[in-house]
């Protein structure tokens, strides 16, 4: 499968274009790094690719077709701030159940203890929460994952742990991954190729 963004441009109301004419594509089984400076629109581009934001111009195509707007989204986004992206009123078990049945082997591999499932998001640290947001996208219906700086708030051991699980899953299920990161070493380690969002792309 192929996920591609064609001639993507985006601007917020009353501002200049954040970026213009971006062409980016990911194939199944490929890990693409997305690197850019702070404030250049990485998170916005991530949201556009996952279909959560409509580009001002251009379109996102999955195998030549538009993303479905009903049912499970095959392009899943993992947000930068887990504390903002998880419903604070839901227990962690329900958060996971939203995405489908819980795979206990998988959550163990990510480093989630079963005991955490009965807790509320406020009772977990940022790093612990981030494992849940990773766990809920690692799902058999997921075809592409957009990971928006998911490991910056984690210690290096947890980082390695989570990335190793994601990479194993991605390879096994032939999933395409876009990894937004600032960490040069990490990008070099895990990515097949790196996409730079640079000033020339801006309006």
């Amino acid at each position, binding site marked *: 499968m192929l996920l591609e963004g064609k001639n993507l441009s985006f601007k917020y109301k009353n501002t200049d274009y954040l970026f213009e004419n971006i062409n980016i594509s990911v194939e199944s089984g490929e890990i693409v790094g997305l690197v850019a400076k702070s*404030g250049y*629109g990485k998170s916005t581009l991530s949201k556009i690719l996952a279909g959560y934001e409509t580009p001002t111009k251009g379109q996102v195509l999955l195998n030549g077709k538009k993303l479905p707007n009903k049912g499970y989204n095959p392009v899943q986004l993992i947000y930068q701030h887990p504390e903002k992206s998880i419903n604070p009123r839901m227990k962690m078990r329900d958060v996971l159940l939203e995405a489908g049945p819980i795979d206990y082997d998988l959550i163990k591999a990510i480093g989630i203890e079963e005991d955490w499932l009965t807790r509320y998001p406020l009772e977990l640290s*940022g790093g612990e929460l981030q494992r849940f947001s990773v766990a809920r996208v690692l799902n058999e219906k997921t075809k592409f994952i957009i990971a928006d*700086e998911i490991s*910056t708030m984690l210690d*290096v051991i947890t980082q390695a742990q989570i990335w190793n699980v994601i990479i194993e899953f991605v390879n096994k299920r032939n999933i395409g991954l876009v990894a937004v990161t*600032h960490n040069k070493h990490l990008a070099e380690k895990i990515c097949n190729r790196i996409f730079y969002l640079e000033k020339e792309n801006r309006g």
Partner: protein
Amino acid sequence: MSKLLEVIDMSISFKMYEKGFRQSYTQVINNLCIKVSRGEILAIVGSSGSGKSLLAHGILGLLPNNATMTGKILYEGKGLTEKRIEELRGKKIALVPQSVTYLDPLMRIAKQVRGNVKNEERIRKQKESFRRYDLCENSEKLFPYQLSGGMARRALICTAEQEDVDLIIADEPTPGLDIELAMKTLRYFRELADKGKGVLLITHDIDLALNVADNIAVFYAGTTVEITPVSDFLKGEEGLRHPYTKALFNAMPQNGFKAVKGYQPYYKDLPKGCLYSPRCTIAKEECSKSKIPMRQLRGGMVRCIYAT
């Protein structure tokens, strides 16, 4: 160098309700000791959820009501009482909070950064720090939700620069910033330290910490397991003392990306002896018998019997 901040044997526990009205105390930080001198940047690294932010909040007196703190905190040699910290907080000791949710969602960021005062000096200072961090004039009028993650982070850093502080406690100031901006922030901290201030830099980015810090304190499950000069960290595995620090080093993407098995114990069922012993490769019977004290080793400190 004179000592600026000293935390001696700090423990923090939370009162929690179990079933009904039954209460229990859970200790999240145990016997923690650190010190920051004038002119020093002490970086604190360690696993997520090891109580790094709690330490910051404990020093600043920002713990929630159900928390109890024991131990001593000395600031400039004198005890830091509740009353004293209230006077110092924001004026002499500044915090760069960890999460961008600390910004008031209903206040424009420029106003938020300089505080609710109209004063030319303050405005000038705020504009100066905005310029330093590439926040353009247009962004001054924005609300936090209109900022990107990195911009919000920079606004948070700016707030700590507004007063002439002696001690900055920066709780993960760099995630979301690109290398250039992150380095700029840290270089600014270095400048402050060189002027005789103290910086407590809590971070996950060991790479960056190695660039600017003088000493590194490694946290695990609510306590310090090692305090080491940066130079030892740069030497690699042999320079380091504690097995956990070595594991951290080996997990960095450029050094193998290897994750040790297991995870940090949950604070409700901490092992009796060494907190790291269940995951440790060199652990022996003795390790799980009793608490391990910190000891001096090769110019640093370590909480391990077998470290060499």
